[in-house]
């Protein structure tokens, strides 16, 4: 009994790692390519429009440009065939003074956007792991 649990758990850990057959595909492909990236970004914009806290940050933004650049950025970061032609994250978010709470709220909205686009949970996490790296270029600047 004592060690069975630990063995079971370790097996589960490594078993799950081993069975990830999709790991040699880009996250972009796992998401479902350009069409899904666009769907997620469109859903995200809808989420923002209905969220009074996050909408504040966007009220003076050019939504068309935001959509275009975010699609490029997500596509590029997840290994898709796109080039990001927008400004740096620091430049885009400079002066907004985004708080940690609002950033995380934004992440919640992005998760909702992926849920509504039927992106599978494991793929969502891979996307988040990639996008999370941009966090420190966005907070409190």
């Amino acid at each position: 009994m004592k060690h069975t649990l630990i063995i079971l758990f370790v097996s589960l850990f490594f078993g799950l790692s081993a069975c990830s057959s999709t790991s040699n595909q880009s996250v972009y492909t796992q998401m479902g390519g350009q069409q899904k990236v666009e769907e997620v970004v469109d859903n995200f914009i809808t989420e923002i429009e209905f969220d009074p806290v996050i909408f504040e940050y966007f009220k003076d933004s050019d939504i068309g440009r935001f959509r275009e650049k975010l699609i490029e950025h997500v596509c590029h970061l997840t290994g898709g065939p796109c080039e990001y032609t927008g400004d740096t994250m620091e430049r885009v978010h400079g002066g907004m003074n985004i708080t940690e709470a609002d950033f995380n709220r934004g992440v919640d909205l992005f998760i909702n956007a992926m849920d509504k686009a039927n992106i599978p949970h494991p793929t969502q996490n891979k996307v988040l792991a990639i996008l999370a790296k941009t966090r420190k270029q966005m907070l409190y600047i």
Partner: protein
Amino acid sequence: MHKKVSIAYITGITFALCTTLASAQDGKLIGTAGLVQLEGSGGGGIVPWATLSGYDSQDQVSVSAVATQVDVDDYRLNVLGLSASFYDRVEVSVAQHRFDLKGAGVDIKQNIYGVKYRLYGDVVYSDWPQISVGAQHKVLDDEAIASAVGADKTSSGTDFYVAATKVHLGAIAGYNAVWNVTARATKANEMGLLGYGGVNNDSYEIMLEASAGILFSRHFAIGVEYRQKPDNLGLGEDDWKDFFVTYIPSKDFSITLAWADLGTIAAVDDQDGLYLSLNGQLW
């Protein structure tokens, strides 16, 4: 009688939690606030983690409540706790233990006052694990049994710990994984319920504790925990282990069910059974 009391406690707490304020803090990703462990600190189930209880961010304050029952063959532990986390930096907590010796019809009561300070990192976003230090000061209300089993000190004692916790997004076939390692300096016998120190040892010793878990969705996690313990009294005190499943319907509430293997307690062996914990964010 005790069973009725504990059911009433849990029902009461559940009711309180289910009617929580809509304005509860939500500045962290769901599932990443962790749980509240046996001694009332933010953690897993039996191990204090580097995470602070509640979903507060750097700009927020949160208050959480917990009710836990561990029911093994010859003993039953009821825990009620309240904790507050300030700006995801400092956590203060208070918890009460009622440890029921089923056969003897007596219980041991102790109060635990905890404080934790986050030194570094964010459990999800920083490159390195989140690191916190903490203390748990335990005051024993009923000293007779601690005295009878030969504890060196029966009134109170303090544990000190340092913990490292990390969530890895999408790490295991796309599922989020969490691990924690804690080093605790302690003299406590069975978390302090049987006093401090004894015939084998009466000085601080470093004990290692660890947890690992996988989140299968935003609302469902499983994991294992291990807690090394000293045998100061020479009564065969064992290390603890548990295997848990947690359901997290929202940031305001979680419920954890575990199988706990507590080994020998006060020379009575093979103590294992169910661990049930309800954890809610009040603010």
